């Protein structure tokens, strides 16, 4: 039985054998394993794990290598919201249950398949990109690169613009650990959107990597949405690397799970690149969610805009820790970061920590805004005085709060499904809002 907490080199080789991988990929896993073995397990004294105690994570659950059958019920949030798809990969537990691509897309050279098949059939592409965006520098990232349980690969060649999105669903149906890995590559001036959807009610630990390569002038829109059941631990790196004048637009939706620790990063390594990071989260009873983001301005004239908004109710905790780093050589950058939290009931707690690391003085703009607050009682009274009951008034305010982010989501249907999920969450939670003055 393979377990993440005592992962060995033999385990890694066995995983590679199980999937029947080419030799180069097995070697990659081995190199990653060495990095993994050299890294300490995170503990709560580490700066990066100050807000989420790694002891909460279930790393003893056995690693699942097989793809379970596709569940009959369509789960997930965003993937179901769209109509026609250019391609779809369905990861169920430890493998890929299905991968399809539309004929039209194939004709344009688009590839949508599972990662192991891609390693055989598109070796040059996978070889040159796998692990370049998210490597083996941190413990969980290294664990994924060494022991990933298959995953998805999507490639959109130069100048191809897809009108339909590509959906990648990650479902946890069996108890255990899985390490899915998603590699997305957009060639120069390509344009495509991707819906990565996470769902499942199992007692599962998901250690995931989604790495996105955006070549010069390309545009990638990517949604990472999770609505896990209450027994899922999720540790993920969702990272984009942007070429010159490229555009990476990420949206993170965190609704479920027990312990969730995501790193939504964007690396602006070439001049003129843009990164937009949007986030919506809703935490309730028993949940802990941390979003630890890095926006890295590593070239001149790069721009970025981050906006994360979350609401919390019940005994729950959310942390947003967002760093904007502007390197010394990255001149004339513009960046902005906003995180706002709405506390709906007494026990919920949010931490909002913006960090600016600005290493040069030639900055066009660098702003940050951060807040943790409760529902405004003046606004509540105004709504209630118009006959709107307190619970419904609170819902209106919660939607209004999220509107600032959801209004910016340009992918059709996505804002609507997110707001519908938020509504479901608000309705399911405790209705007595925080208010000292009331009986």
């Amino acid at each position: 039985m393979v377990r993440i907490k005592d992962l060995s080199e033999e385990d890694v080789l066995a995983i590679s054998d199980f999937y029947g991988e080419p030799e180069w990929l097995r070697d990659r896993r081995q190199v990653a394993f060495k990095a993994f073995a050299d890294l300490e397990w995170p503990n709560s004294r580490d700066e990066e794990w100050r807000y989420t105690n790694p002891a909460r994570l279930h790393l003893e659950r056995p690693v699942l290598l097989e793809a379970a059958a596709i569940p009959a019920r369509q789960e997930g949030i965003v993937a179901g919201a769209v109509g026609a798809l250019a391609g779809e990969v369905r990861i169920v537990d430890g493998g890929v249950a299905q991968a399809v691509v539309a004929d039209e897309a194939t004709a344009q050279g688009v590839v949508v398949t599972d990662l192991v098949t891609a390693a055989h059939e598109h070796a040059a592409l996978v070889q040159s990109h796998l692990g370049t965006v998210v490597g083996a520098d941190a413990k969980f990232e290294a664990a994924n690169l060494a022991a990933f349980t298959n995953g998805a690969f999507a490639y959109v060649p130069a100048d191809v613009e897809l009108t339909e999105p590509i959906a990648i669903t990650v479902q946890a149906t069996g108890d255990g650990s899985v390490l899915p890995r998603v590699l997305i590559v957009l060639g120069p001036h390509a344009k495509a959107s991707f819906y990565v959807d996470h769902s499942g009610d199992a007692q599962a630990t998901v250690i995931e990597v989604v790495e996105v390569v955006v070549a010069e002038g390309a545009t990638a829109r990517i949604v990472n949405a999770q609505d896990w059941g209450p027994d899922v631990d999720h540790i993920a790196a969702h990272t984009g690397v942007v070429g010159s004048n490229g555009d990476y637009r990420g949206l993170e939706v965190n609704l479920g799970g027990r312990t969730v620790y995501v790193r939504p990063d964007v690396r602006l390594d070439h001049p003129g690149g843009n990164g937009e990071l949007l986030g919506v989260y809703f935490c309730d009873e028993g949940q802990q969610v941390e979003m630890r983001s890095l926006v890295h301005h590593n070239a001149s004239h790069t721009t970025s805009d981050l906006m994360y908004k979350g609401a919390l109710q019940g005994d729950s905790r959310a942390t947003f820790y967002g760093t904007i780093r502007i390197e010394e050589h990255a001149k004339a950058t513009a960046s902005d970061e906003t995180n706002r939290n709405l506390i709906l009931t007494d026990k919920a707690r949010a931490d909002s920590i913006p960090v600016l690391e600005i290493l040069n003085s030639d900055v066009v703009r660098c702003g940050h805004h951060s807040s943790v607050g409760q529902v405004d009682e003046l606004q509540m009274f105004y709504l209630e005085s118009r006959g709107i009951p307190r619970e419904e008034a609170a819902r209106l305010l919660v939607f209004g709060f999220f509107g600032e982010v959801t209004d910016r989501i340009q992918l059709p249907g996505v804002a609507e499904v997110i707001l519908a999920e938020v509504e479901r969450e608000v309705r399911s939670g405790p209705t007595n809002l925080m208010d000292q003055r009331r009986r």
Partner: protein
Amino acid sequence: MTELEIKGLTVEVDGKQILKGLDLVVTKGETHALMGPNGSGKSTLAYAIMGHPAYNVTDGSILVQGTDIGELPPDERAKMGLFLAMQYPTEIPGVSLTNFLRTAINATREEDLPVRQFMTSLREHMSALQMDERFLQRNVNEGFSGGEKKRFEILQMAMLQPQIAVLDETDSGLDVDALKVVAEGINRLRGPQLGVLLITHYTRILRYITPDHVHVMVDGRVVQSGGPELAAELEEGGYEHLRVSA
């Protein structure tokens, strides 16, 4: 029929007594002007009537059609036909005017008004108040000028069709043209089914809206009541001589 009856009302805010035994009766079909200097407790009365949680009723009672509403939350009071046009309407970012109004109307009527009917009625009232269609795209009071906020309060009153409307300084901060539009809006709604409590600091709005009764409030009490002629007296002499005679 007596719609609103206030008896010996005392109200505290932050532990400080603001209303000190106030009596007032407003009947359907009548318009009452309540006047008084700044700080006399006019807004406190308005909030207490509507059930704002920060305004603590420590004695006396507020009755609507004979029922004591002291324990009811604000939304229940609205459903009983009370409406408060606020002196300082609250901005609510992210909540669209249309969505807000529809939710409010469906909540007070306790049944859903068909969208088409809602929109028709909304457009009619908006044009009467000389409000641009573009308001429909905006969020509740967000970025509204003072005059726009006051118009929107009257628009809500028109849509919600209350039985008793408390209008707290709806005239303040308006230029003459806006004041006329707002006053006409209020006059259109007056009738046998509506009682109005028009709270004002100045007599200006009373040139456009003739009250049936005028009350003067000083230091948390009604100190004098009379007909429209009382307003004229106030215009001449101000509140000072009243305070002395009271």
